[in-house]
């Protein structure tokens, strides 16, 4: 007789974490292959095509890095919120609010201020927008005990409608000939890109810097420690006199602010004007949740996992065109991988032992 049993694993090494992640992703890809098979697509071809499309060509890789920028920014910010067990599902709305704030700044001052003044100003405005939209659920949670999953999601919908209201109404640009959308940002307010690509490198550098600084904040500062205690052991935190309201407010200002920065990058680096919510962000706020989870809630690792999931987004676009698969395919890939990542966590924390015995 074969018996399976699980016991707690007390030592979790970095190598084991990495191996578990790789194994989980591989198992996830195996299940995705089955889904592809059922959909009548050769899975080997589809999966090769995904990675070929994103990492296999120079053009694809440039696109992957472009899409990694918002994912790194948001993913890094989410690691902080998730560590405090604040389930911020509202990065999408925080990104849009950042886009709204920075577009206003760019349109209002872009013609009068030089580039080196207006660009930092727009990033500051974007951070502020995202942070403001991020602290609302923090206040609602601490003061009114409202579940943050619900409030952040509702704020996503509300922000998307505010944005639409602006671009079909007061902000509708004269140069759009009646179509929704603001006028283009002035040249001074547009981020320059690496020639031959869409990589707005200022935001990329900012994203990596933010991830690095956040890693130091989480592991080396008192605030980072407090944020972790709020999540892991709230009772001890209360006993130790941690101010939950202040800590949650700050961490959500950072988490939302980073999403706001991503919004600045999308508007000033990619689109150059404010258009419909679905074109400003293609679900980065949700994909970043998996980015943060794969990074094991370490902001620096979010750089790597951000690039990985950006690759899946770009590869997903590639197979849509070459295999005629619907856009939703990427969501299947993301959902399945996330399920396998959390399944992997179990094997990371529990030792599986198989014992053989004769009965």
């Amino acid at each position: 007789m074969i018996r399976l049993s699980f016991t707690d694993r007390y030592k979790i090494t970095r190598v084991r974490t990495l191996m578990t992640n790789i194994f989980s992703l591989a198992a996830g890809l195996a299940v995705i292959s089955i889904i592809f098979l059922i959909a009548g697509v050769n899975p080997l071809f589809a999966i090769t095509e995904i990675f070929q499309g994103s990492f296999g060509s120079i053009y694809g890789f440039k696109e992957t890095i472009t899409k990694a920028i918002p994912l790194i920014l948001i993913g890094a910010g989410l690691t902080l919120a998730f560590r405090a067990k604040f389930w911020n599902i509202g990065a999408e709305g925080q990104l849009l609010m950042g886009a709204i704030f920075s577009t206003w700044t760019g349109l209002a001052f872009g013609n009068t201020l030089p580039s080196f003044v207006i660009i930092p100003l727009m990033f500051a405005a974007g951070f502020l927008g995202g942070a403001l939209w991020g602290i609302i659920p923090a206040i609602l949670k601490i003061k009114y005990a409202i579940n943050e999953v619900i409030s952040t999601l509702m704020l996503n919908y509300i922000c998307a409608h505010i944005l639409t209201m602006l671009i079909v109404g007061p902000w509708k640009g004269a140069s759009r000939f009646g179509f929704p959308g603001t006028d283009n940002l002035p040249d001074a307010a547009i981020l320059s890109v690496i020639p031959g690509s869409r990589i707005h490198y200022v935001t990329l550098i900012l994203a990596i810097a933010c991830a690095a600084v956040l890693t130091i904040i989480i592991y080396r500062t008192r605030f980072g420690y407090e944020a972790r205690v709020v999540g892991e052991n709230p009772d001890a935190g209360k006993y130790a006199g941690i101010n939950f309201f202040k800590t949650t407010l700050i961490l959500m200002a950072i988490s939302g602010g980073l999403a706001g920065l991503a919004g600045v990058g999308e508007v000033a680096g990619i689109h150059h004007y404010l258009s419909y919510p679905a074109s400003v962000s293609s679900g980065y706020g949700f994909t970043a949740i998996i980015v943060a989870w794969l990074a094991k809630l370490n902001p620096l690792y979010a750089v790597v996992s951000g690039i990985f999931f950006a690759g899946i987004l770009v590869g997903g676009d590639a197979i849509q065109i070459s295999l005629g698969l619907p856009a939703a395919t990427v969501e299947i890939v993301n959902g399945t991988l996330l399920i396998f990542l959390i399944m992997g966590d179990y094997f990371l924390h529990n030792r599986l032992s198989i014992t053989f015995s004769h009965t």
Partner: protein
Amino acid sequence: MEDIIISTLQRTMVAGTPLLLATTGEIICERSGILNLGVEGVMALGAVTAFIVTMTTGSPWLGVLAALAAGMVISVIHAFTSVTLQANQVVSGLALTMLGLGLAGMVGKPYVGKPLTIKMEDITIPILSDIPYIGKAFFSQSPFFFMAIALALISWFFLQRTRLGIQIRSTGENPRATETQGVNVFLIRYVSVIIGGGFSALAGAHLSISYSKSWIEGMTAGRGWIAIALTIFALWNPGRAIWAAFLFGGIFVAQYLMQPLGISPNFLAMLPYIATLLILVLISLKDPRKLNAPAMLATPYKRGER
């Protein structure tokens, strides 16, 4: 004027129906201590399954059954990760939503924009439906409406009065003590999650084969998330869920009523989401002990641990 009242009431009942179905399901699930954030995805999968099966077989009832089955099957994933693997329920639920929305989009792609010609006959209760003003709204509706009300009432009775219902509730309050009573806590939680998923899928079926008679990606439009908020608003009580859901149905309908007043349609479209937040604020002003949330909600239970 009479026409406006009748049609407003009627549309309120229609808009509240999917909310009631999904909320009832989530209440059963959360009562057992499991938070399921997958409602939105399961609802979408239910909608697409019901639509395709109804269109190909010509029978809406087969569509309903297929949706129910699909919702229950996909919910097993969440039950497995959150009960057996004791994983984080928030992340697992989100993953389920992504998977559900993705599968629905993929499977439903060839059906986007195709109208459903097969109609589900309304059920009209004689005599009662002749009551002025309210008769038509309450007693001449789609079968889903009566199904939603009946399931909510049955669930209320089931959770309050039956042995299994009490076992579900005590699993959500104190799984350890429940287990010492000889109850299989894991099984109870599995069953609750699966029933909840089935109800969410029924809500989706209502949207695609009764409400809009078509399938398009994103047609659930956040109703699954609103159902999760309504679960709190209903204080985890299916009886209260009835009026909570129809109050929200009314808010959905209010959008269209206020449009002629010249208010921006985008502002009106925000109303259900703003109302959700406002209502949660109002609820929180209550004494938290009277909120009656399951004590062990979203807390994984590990056997043999003290």
